[in-house]
């Protein structure tokens, strides 16, 4: 897919009035998230990485965002999305059960762990989870469809789109703290906003995006 916001890097706003020290600290901590399991066990981590690869495949031409690391860090800190689903255990437990159960279902169906399956087999298994058709003992009574819709589809995109690399991809301005936006009308742009490239006008957008950090 062509770059819709050529030359845009949200981190260029770091030292502008758009961000204050609190914002800079939060983003720095997020970027420094260790890329390895701390909350999860090694096997759960492998399953989670494979799962994230199916839910949010990333372009091969740039370093991938470690979604698994962001989810791991959040659960390690005890964080949640801020609300709980009655039929699901707490986020930490739900994730551990769900990953172990997906792995167990893969082993039962194909004799291999989830991360070792071919992509189409992983997808087929996830589709069954989405329909609530997986109910092996490893699920410990947790509905697989709820795990899929609330944890998998809730937490993975939330983690991915919390990362500046994802913001660059969609032209998101990052935290508006303290500087927000002034030109609110449709199709108007503040000089510190990402410029979207119209077809054939990529150079113009690139020039505007270079100025975002000034």
């Amino acid at each position, binding site marked *: 897919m062509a770059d819709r916001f050529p030359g845009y890097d949200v981190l260029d706003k770091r030292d502008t*009035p758009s961000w*204050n020290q609190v914002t800079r600290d939060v983003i720095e901590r997020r970027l420094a998230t260790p890329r390895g399991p701390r909350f999860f066990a090694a096997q759960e981590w492998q399953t989670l990485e494979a799962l994230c690869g199916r839910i949010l495949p990333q372009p091969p031409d740039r370093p991938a965002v470690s979604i698994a690391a962001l989810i791991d860090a959040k659960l390690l800190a005890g964080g949640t999305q801020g609300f709980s689903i009655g039929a699901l255990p707490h986020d930490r437990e739900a994730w551990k059960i769900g990953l172990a159960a997906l792995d167990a279902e893969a082993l039962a169906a194909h004799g291999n762990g989830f991360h070792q399956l071919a992509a189409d087999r992983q997808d087929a298994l996830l589709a069954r989870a989405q329909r609530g058709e997986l109910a092996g003992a490893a699920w410990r009574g947790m509905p697989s469809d709820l795990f899929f819709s609330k944890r998998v589809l809730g937490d993975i995109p939330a983690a991915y789109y919390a990362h500046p690399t994802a913001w660059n991809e969609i032209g998101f301005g990052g935290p508006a*703290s*303290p*500087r*927000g*936006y*002034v*030109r609110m009308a449709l199709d*108007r*742009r503040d*000089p*510190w906003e990402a410029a979207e490239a119209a077809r054939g006008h990529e150079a113009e957008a690139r020039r505007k995006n270079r100025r975002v950090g000034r």
Partner: protein
Amino acid sequence: MRIADRRKTDITVQGARRLNLAAGMLAASVLADSGVEHYRGSFHNKAMFTPLVSSALALAVSAHGLADHRRGSHAFRDTVYAPAGLIGLIGTGFHLYNVAKKPGGFPWLSLFYSAPIGAPAALSLAGLMGFLAERVRGAAPGKPPRVGGVAAGRVVAAATSAGILGTFGEVALLHFRGAYHNPFMFAPVSAPPLAAALLAGAALSPGRTSRPVTRWWLRLTTALGFAGVGFHAWGVSRGMGGWRNWSQNVLNGPPLPAPPAFAALALAGLAALTLMEAFADG
């Protein structure tokens, strides 16, 4: 020339220069305000450059007029002032169109957040004050200056009164939008209407030679106009990020160049009083 005539000529020129000053202050206010606000509007319509050009020219000829101690109107100043008055009217039309084309016609939201309807009128007032300055200055030596057959002092007083009332309307709308969250926001909707009423009274009773209350009230209104810049600067500093975040807060905060419009009009009112007192007989 008799000494009394010479004195009256001095008063005429002085009155004209004060009106040049008022016109210049209004033009400066319009230049800064439309510059900031139209930059915010990204000069989406190329016509949005017009008030910048017109007010810059009006500011320049007003400075020229203020420095000019000679009698007689000035052709170039006139050719700047008259179009400024007209451009202000056209601008009002543009702003009305901008509000009217928003879905829903004229609800409060559009009045609050679209192009401000009252703003271009300030350019008209600058042009009008400048035009009146040239008429006052153009009076024959020793003769009372007249505009359209009426004593110029009365005309200036009436025009100033109307200008203050219009500005009051704009301030009332925008300070209402600001929910009068600071009690000082009531000041510019309290003092100026009274100043307008006093000036209207003066315009209607030209015979009197001394109006100390009106004079002092206009001085108060002048001070208020300058103090308003300070209050608005304080308002900008209260936005998140304060003055360091000026690129958002100057645009989103209270307009810094707006309050001096009251000061300019009050100064024009004072000039009107001086003219009326000097030419009470005519």
